[in-house]
């Protein structure tokens, strides 16, 4: 109907599939995110470690070419570079921080504006459940952080395989599984925490501060706990340390796990995983408590 026909008409046409309707939220949000130069640039910047890794893998795969180019020093230096679990561990330790930065920047602004402006009744009075709402918001962060973690990670793995032989892929399948699982663990943990904070703190600046506080203040508290009580379990309060433990466990062999980990964090990797699971459960509870179409004043 043309715009000038100003009258109320019922809609009786076809409807879209309900199963994928939650993806409407990330579609709209991602359009907003990438319409701003700053966020677009920040996102591209977050891909830099992967680009560097890609170049290194390429050069390492073509190290012999440097001899042909009369650059034996370069070829020798690249010969020391080993594309293995440690290589991916270093890369994903860097990406852990960059993906956290993206989550910290975007996450607090996802739910807080809806709560501050009372938009939840509008979403939830439609055929759209609370779970779909949270899933929609969560998928914004998942899509963005996936694009700088496991998706380019798989590309790197494929690139390295193409540079060597299939046997490298079969020998290092642990890396492929590790980068996917590890990335998802980190993405879900950080995203859920940031959404939970966004649901509870209406002001974006305070929400971002709270998120940074959870990571950095809690980490400091964990270090102090370790120092005062002469224990290592305080490391469980440090989310980044927990994730590093998990990365090590996923990328390295069991035998090398304890030899490569700093003494203050030398606790079993599963405890770090459990700590993050507890945090995720708490975040989900906070979201379930707060994401309601109508607030009941008791």
């Amino acid at each position, binding site marked *: *109907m043309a*715009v*000038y*026909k*100003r*009258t*109320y*008409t*019922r*809609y*009786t*046409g*076809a*409807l*879209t*599939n*309900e199963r994928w*309707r939650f993806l*409407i939220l990330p579609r*709209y949000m991602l359009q*907003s995110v990438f319409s701003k130069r700053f966020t677009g640039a920040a996102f591209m910047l977050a891909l830099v470690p992967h680009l560097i890794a890609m170049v290194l893998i390429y050069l390492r795969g073509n190290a012999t070419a440097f001899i042909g180019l009369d650059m034996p020093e370069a070829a020798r230096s690249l010969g020391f570079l080993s594309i293995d679990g440690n290589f991916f561990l270093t890369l994903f330790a860097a990406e852990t921080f960059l993906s956290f930065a993206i989550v910290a920047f975007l996450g607090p602004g996802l739910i807080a*504006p*809806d709560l*501050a*402006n*009372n*938009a939840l*009744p*509008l*979403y*939830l*009075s*439609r*055929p*759209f*459940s609370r779970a779909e709402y949270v899933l929609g918001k969560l998928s914004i962060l998942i899509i963005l952080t996936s694009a700088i973690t496991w998706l380019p990670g798989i590309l790197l793995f494929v690139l390295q395989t193409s540079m060597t032989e299939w046997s490298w892929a079969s020998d290092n399948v642990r890396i492929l599984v590790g980068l996917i699982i590890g990335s998802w663990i980190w993405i879900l943990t950080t995203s859920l925490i940031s959404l939970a904070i966004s649901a509870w703190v209406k002001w974006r600046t305070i929400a971002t501060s709270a998120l940074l506080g959870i990571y950095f203040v809690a980490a400091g508290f964990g270090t102090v706990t370790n120092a005062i009580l002469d224990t290592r379990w305080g490391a469980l309060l440090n989310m980044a340390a927990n994730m590093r433990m998990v990365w090590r466990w996923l990328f390295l062999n069991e035998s090398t796990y304890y030899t490569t980990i700093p003494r203050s964090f030398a606790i079993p990797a599963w405890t770090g995983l459990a700590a993050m699971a507890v945090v995720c459960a708490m975040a989900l509870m906070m979201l379930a408590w707060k994401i*309601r*179409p*109508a607030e*009941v*004043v*008791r």
Partner: protein
Amino acid sequence: MREPGILQASAFRMAFIELDKLSLSLGGRPILKELTGSYSGRCIGLLGPNGAGKTTLLQTLLGFHPPTSGTARVFDLDIRTQLRKIRHHIGYMPENDAFVAGMTAIRFVRMMAEISGLPADIALERAHETLFYVGLGEARYRQLGTYSLGMKQMAKLAVAIVHGPRGVILDEPTNGLDPAGRIRMIQLVREIRDTQDINLIVSSHLLRDIEEFCDEVMIMKDGLIVTYCNLEEERRANRKFLQLETRGENGTFLEAAEALGCTCAVDTRANRVKMVLPETVEIHDLYRLAEEHKIQIRHLQYKRDSLHDIFMKAMEVGTANPGAKSQRLARPAGVVR
């Protein structure tokens, strides 16, 4: 894509809302108390004082609060088991501001249409149409956060109707509007009401607004529906309502009038009497009675029950007659003798 489970024309014959001992407690406090009834008005007004449970009833119908006991049906769909289907057919305009500040009106309305299940291209088309329809066509590319209160109300209405629902729930639609905005809103609601095949529920504190666009009225008090009446029938009722102002002791006069079959209510402070005359009694009979009982009729005018009277009466009757349906006032409002 799939075809929606659309209610066809036959849906109009079914009740819009059916309440079946619907009870709701929030925080241990009973808010809705065993509401029962079947309501099929095209535009139902929901009236009641603050805290009567109007908004809570609307929100319960939308599934915002699960009923403590009993149930309700909207277009014959149970709110306990078919909530998602109900929400396909309902548009909701909440009482308070509801928007996303960082979005333009067109984006927000379009997104809401898409969430309701409309394909993206149709959602965009309908968002444009709807914003023009509510009078925000020229402002549709402005951010919602920059809108005035009146514009926000219109934007909420646009969000409520963009997906072309079968029923629309409007909670205080004229809240905070200036006179021109109020008139525009009333006009829009009337237009929507007069569109074929749509039902509305309008909650409001303002009796005048309800009178403007509703054909049936549900009055709530303390979580109960104390009165439900058809305003059209009330308006058409061929009953003789009078308001008299008398001087002198009118006790015996009123007794004599009641003996003739009149129904009387007295406001002793103002010495006013509201009276319903049966078909057999004429005005000159009252003058005759006044003369016989030595009182003066200083003022006399025909006065049917206004919505205000109905409301005041309902507030007086209160819990005495909960769940009354299609109840017409037996007596005009006032201090009942």
